[in-house]
């Protein structure tokens, strides 16, 4: 599909907001299913063609960063996962990695591998929601049910591990809340053995579908230069030929031990953004399988008493253990003064927590580098000149989570 260049306005009176009828200003959202959250867009149209798109965000602003300044380091895990509710484990991981670096914590290998398994499974779950809801915007109802069926299996795993299906809060500074249940390994193996076969079906069902290709190929192109200029990260950037993946560039949590590829595309259109995510799900499966094979029994918490609660059995016969327990729960630990930033790869892009400690038991300042906010900026340049109906699937193709945008 060829994209026509936008005709420039002939004079001042034709600009949006004047009495001229050439341009039409349309309000999209904030309460509309196609905006994937409470995103409001002010769109100027010339007929069917888009002249400008102005995202208005902030409807979900919750002040998490400010709240975290008034909670102990351990309590902040409650807040981090509420920002990106679709890839919650990634936010937890990014936060605890930053604090662990501040504390010089030594996280046991078993805990790191379990973190990787859960984060990657969650990445698949997030991409499944991307496909389900994204296809829904194109009018395809069937993929939604398949994607949700797959995701249900993952939700069961997360529920078995953390007790809840959303807002897990399972990672702790220095390790995990507790070890995974005995059924964990079997549950994960069953799921990842079945998924690639199902993924083949889905590939034939939607990615190889000629109607979908006609609708998405060559539409809403983000060039490589544009991606760099607008700081696009994550799968959307990799679809434009920017090979940025922090699991490879700055490996954290034993990612350097697994063999996996980083799928990239050069086209930068909506189809490329979908294809990269599709391949990423299969790569995540590979990582999970390798991490499961390497998973060995062992502790899941840093034995350092500055960070971790003493084991339950010690509380019955050790006064010191009771004191440590009391101090950790009521006051929390005190990281040394300093500033840290650990970049990680979430399902949406670069995710990092810039944590500043003043030596107290609460962070002095937390700044979340959330990928969705920066990614949303690429919506306008890629939509201009295109059709209004394409803009709706373009929003979905960047996969914004509004909790992640507004923080």
């Amino acid at each position, binding site marked *: 599909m060829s994209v026509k260049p936008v005709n420039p306005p002939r004079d001042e009176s034709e600009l949006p907001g004047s009495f001229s009828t050439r341009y039409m200003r349309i309000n999209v959202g904030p309460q509309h299913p196609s905006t994937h959250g409470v995103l409001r867009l002010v769109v100027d149209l010339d007929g069917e063609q888009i002249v400008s798109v102005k995202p208005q965000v*902030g409807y979900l602003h919750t002040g998490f960063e400010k709240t975290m300044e008034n909670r102990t380091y351990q309590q902040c895990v409650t807040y981090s996962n509420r920002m990106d509710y679709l890839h919650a484990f990634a936010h937890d991981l990014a936060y605890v990695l930053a604090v662990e670096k*501040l504390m010089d914590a030594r996280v046991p290998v078993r805990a790191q591998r379990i973190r990787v398994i859960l984060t990657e499974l969650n990445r698949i779950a997030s991409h499944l929601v991307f496909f389900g809801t994204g296809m829904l915007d194109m009018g395809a109802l069937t993929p939604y049910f398949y994607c949700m069926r797959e995701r249900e299996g993952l939700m069961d795993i997360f529920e078995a591990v953390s007790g809840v299906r959303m807002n897990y809060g399972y990672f702790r500074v220095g390790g995990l809340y507790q070890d995974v249940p005995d059924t964990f390994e079997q549950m994960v193996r069953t799921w990842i053995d079945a998924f690639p076969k199902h993924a083949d079906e889905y590939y034939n069902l939607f990615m190889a579908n000629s109607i979908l290709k006609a609708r998405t190929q060559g539409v809403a192109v983000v060039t490589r230069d544009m991606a760099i200029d607008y700081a696009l990260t994550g799968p959307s950037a990799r679809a434009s030929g920017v090979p940025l993946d922090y699991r490879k560039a700055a490996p954290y949590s034993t990612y350097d031990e697994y063999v996996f590829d980083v799928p990239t595309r050069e086209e930068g259109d909506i189809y490329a953004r979908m294809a990269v995510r599709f391949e990423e799900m299969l790569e995540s499966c590979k990582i999970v399988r390798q991490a499961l094979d390497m998973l060995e029994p062992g502790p899941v918490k840093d034995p350092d008493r500055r960070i971790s609660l003493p084991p339950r059995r010690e509380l019955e016969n050790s006064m010191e253990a009771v004191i440590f327990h009391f101090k950790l729960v009521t006051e929390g630990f005190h990281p040394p003064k300093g500033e840290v930033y650990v970049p990680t790869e979430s399902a949406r892009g670069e995710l990092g927590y810039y944590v500043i400690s003043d030596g107290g038991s609460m962070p002095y*300042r937390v700044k979340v580098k959330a990928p969705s906010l920066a990614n949303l900026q690429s919506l306008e340049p890629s939509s201009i000149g295109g059709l209004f109906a394409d803009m709706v699937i373009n929003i979905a193709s960047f996969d914004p989570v509004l909790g992640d945008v507004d923080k």
Partner: protein
Amino acid sequence: MSDALLEDLVPLGANRAAALAALVELGGVAGEGKEMLNVTVPKAKVVEALRACRAAGLEMLTDIFGIDYLTYPGHRGKRFAVVYNVHDVRGTDRLFVRVEVDDGESVPTATEVWRGADFLERETFDMLGIEFEGHPNLRKLLTPEDLDGHPHRKDFPLGETPTLFNDGRFLDPAAFRAGLTGRNPGLTGWSGGARRGVTSTEGTLPDEGRGKA
């Protein structure tokens, strides 16, 4: 800190080394974080410094944010720091460019260097009230239009904030709570017992009307 010492401490990638050299030439002072490299540059040179970073291969600006050091123990220097998080396209080299500003000072905008700086500068302005000179559209990004103040400042009141709504209603939390507990009728006009409701609070200040209902 001399360059030689710095290279010992931080394993520099080629891009980062080139950017650091350019920044030091512009008057930047390198500082040390946990495996991070901070360079504080003079405020007047910030756009030049960011251009130098981009030319040296640190091509992406991922984030801009501000830090309020008002209550930071032992902090000397200006109150705010604006931090630019720049890295290369492979993600292996990263550098934090910092600018120090006082309350009321403005920083030149980076939107000429990266168009993606737009939202990031708006967020910084919204959260800390640091203005960016030459920004094409410096409006609040996340907080509601009728919120006074900038929430990430350390002197922003938490919780008990009297709120003036657009329609002229004024909500004073202390008075509101007093009204609910019945010790004082407060703004709700309720002092226990049967609920009487409020006839009109339009235009009343928090202390007027208290105790009359």
